[in-house]
């Protein structure tokens, strides 16, 4: 691993750690003090700010990576992807935090709760759309596109497979319920994990 790569991963880990610590502090803080709705919402949303640092960090890394001497024309799709991803993430965080605090603070009807559930999931569609647009972008390097396409297929297949295994574990062996929304997290996690293996096949 090069020094540049090590620095990038350390900064990345730092941002995620900062998010976790601040979010934990927000939890402790709002539990102790009985704050008005807007303030406790703010207490939860502010700690997510470090997460958005991931976008300039990644852009800077891919831009200066000596292994990927991509021209400006090749960088454009990555920039577009980062912006789409950032906007989706921003709305996801805001809506999720607002929903959590609203459910906690107010007596809501089932219809409103259902509406909140759908609203919270909408930005996840935006994240999936951002990835799809990146893969379909004609300015993306064709080899990179092939790696991404294969990674999407492999991670989707593995996600379905694990979901099937867990489903039977729940039915047969009393395994704990797996929250369905986490399937998306598993899918994107696997998408990241399989990429180096897909890449290795072409060395």
């Amino acid at each position: 691993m090069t020094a540049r790569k090590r620095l990038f991963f350390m900064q990345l880990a730092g941002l995620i750690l900062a998010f976790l610590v601040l979010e934990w502090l927000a939890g402790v803080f709002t539990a102790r003090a009985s704050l008005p709705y807007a303030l406790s919402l703010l207490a939860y949303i502010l700690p997510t700010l470090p997460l958005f640092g991931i976008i300039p960090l990644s852009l800077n890394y891919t831009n200066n990576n000596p292994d990927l001497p991509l021209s400006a024309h090749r960088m454009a799709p990555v920039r577009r992807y980062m912006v789409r991803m950032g906007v989706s993430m921003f709305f996801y965080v805001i809506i999720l935090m607002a929903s959590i605090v609203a459910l906690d603070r107010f007596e809501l009807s089932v219809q409103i709760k259902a509406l909140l559930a759908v609203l919270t999931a909408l930005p996840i569609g935006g994240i999936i759309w951002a990835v799809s647009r990146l893969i379909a972008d004609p300015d993306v390097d064709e080899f990179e596109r092939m790696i991404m396409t294969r990674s999407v297929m492999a991670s989707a297949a593995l996600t379905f497979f694990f979901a099937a295994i867990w489903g039977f574990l729940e039915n047969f062996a009393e395994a704990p319920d797996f929250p369905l929304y986490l399937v998306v997290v598993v899918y994107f996690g696997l998408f990241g994990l399989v990429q180096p293996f897909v890449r290795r096949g072409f060395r």
Partner: protein
Amino acid sequence: MKNRLRVLRAERRWSQAVLAQHLDVSRQSINAIETGKYDPSLPLAFAIARLFEGRIEDIFDDELEKQE
């Protein structure tokens, strides 16, 4: 697909990164094409042939000749 890309590149003393810049692709693409693990698209194959002032069949060998 077998090809002479590594030889042609060596003749010009280009690194994979330099060739990648000439073709506006990633260095990884060049590596994967050279090792024969990845077949370039038709437009990229034409771009490679044009860069080395040859024809596609001068650079890429689909091994048809062996079967004949």
